[in-house]
């Protein structure tokens, strides 16, 4: 489990907002220009630090949305009672300054050499690090079979919708819409459950590698569901976010 250790000191670096892209009504992707960004792996995260003009500072961690080799990008969901995410999603404009340090984390990562087949399971904005993995797979020209099961409240809440619709060759994207569905929807219209996992998950015999990211309730249900299907616990990597603070 060693090998990808981050050993040097992680220092704060100034970053300039390059562009902002609205993904949904409450989710925005920020492209950050960091002159000395050391590069990252798919699935890692980055710390963001904001400084108010009275010197007050706030730090939060965000999953990296871009692939290795691409400029640093984060995708942020606005939590209305949050301190940092409303600023990042509503106030921040190209040219603004903030600080970053990273990349951080070495366990919830995927590299093409890890192989697959790859089973990615996302709840809401948990899709962000998984999108980095899909972009990594594409840019590396990897032929590892990949499936993404992605649970969203509604079609309007699907992050990276156009990209997931067509950009990834050889990736099956299966949506589950839990609250509302567009007219004529024939896909899953419920939360991810054991039956859905059994229908979507690669058979255990293929030695799949699973990455699960989302809110705690989603991750708990999906990870134990995969173990119930016979996935070894060591082949199910999880990342969770609390419903607080970000």
């Amino acid at each position: 489990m060693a090998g990808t250790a981050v050993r040097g000191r992680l220092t704060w670096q100034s970053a300039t907002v390059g562009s902002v892209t609205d993904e949904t009504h409450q989710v925005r992707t920020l492209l950050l220009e960091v002159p000395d960004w050391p590069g990252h792996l798919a699935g890692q995260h980055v710390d963001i630090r904001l400084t108010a003009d009275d010197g007050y500072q706030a730090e939060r961690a965000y999953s990296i949305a871009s692939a290795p080799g691409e400029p640093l990008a984060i995708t942020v969901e606005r939590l209305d009672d949050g301190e940092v995410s409303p600023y990042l999603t509503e106030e921040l404009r190209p040219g603004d300054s903030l600080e970053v340090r990273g990349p951080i984390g070495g366990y919830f990562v995927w590299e093409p050499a890890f192989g697959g087949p790859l089973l990615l399971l996302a709840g809401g904005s948990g899709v962000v690090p998984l999108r980095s993995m899909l972009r990594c797979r594409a840019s590396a020209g990897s032929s590892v079979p990949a499936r993404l099961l992605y649970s969203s409240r509604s079609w309007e809440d699907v992050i990276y919708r156009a990209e997931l619709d067509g950009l990834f060759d050889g990736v099956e994207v299966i949506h589950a819409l839990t609250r509302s569905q567009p007219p004529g929807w024939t896909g899953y219209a419920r939360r991810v459950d054991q039956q859905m996992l059994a229908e979507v998950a690669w058979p255990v015999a293929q030695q799949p590698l699973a990455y699960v990211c989302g809110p705690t309730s989603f991750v708990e249900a999906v990870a134990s569901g995969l173990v119930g299907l016979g996935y070894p616990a060591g082949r199910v990597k999880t990342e969770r976010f609390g419903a607080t603070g970000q």
Partner: protein
Amino acid sequence: MSPISRGFRRKRQEGPAGRVPPGQYVTKDFPVLSAGPTPRTPLANWTFSIDGGREPKSWTWEEFRALPTETLTTDIHCVTRWSKLDTTWQGVSLDVLLAAVEYDARYVLAFCDGGYTTNLPVADLTGGRAWVAFGYDGSPLGAEHGGPARLLVPHLYFWKSAKWVRGLQLRDTDEPGFWENYGYHMYGDPWREQRYAGD
């Protein structure tokens, strides 16, 4: 000198003085963070063991629960920046557990169901500062929060309070555990913001 983030202002209220380490914010939730599926070990198969002393020592669940317990109220601080104040736990003091073993090691590697490990100095586990906790807020500790039992070392970042703990390995040297291998700090003092290696 940090650049000013145009238009950014404090929205959160400051926590009580002296209770919230730098870079942390207070939450009333109890977020969950872990690297893999939640392990579920039947209590009949559960043991807590201390290896690496003169003689190995192990307790079954029944033996462990027969040890003297303490109820304590403390603040906890997660490296992901949430702090939770006045959390109430029930557990067995590490002083009680380590007193059952003869040792002169200076470090431990705590090991857990699911393969998770974390390293700590023995000095941080003694003197009434560390517990193996089995209860939270008057109820059995839930599996997603580390039940049936987790380490509780509240004066260090909370990843050191290893969930699903099954024992300690006494060691002469400080070997990095799971997150420490991925660049997190070897010691993890929240008051000195020791989040990552080199902090």
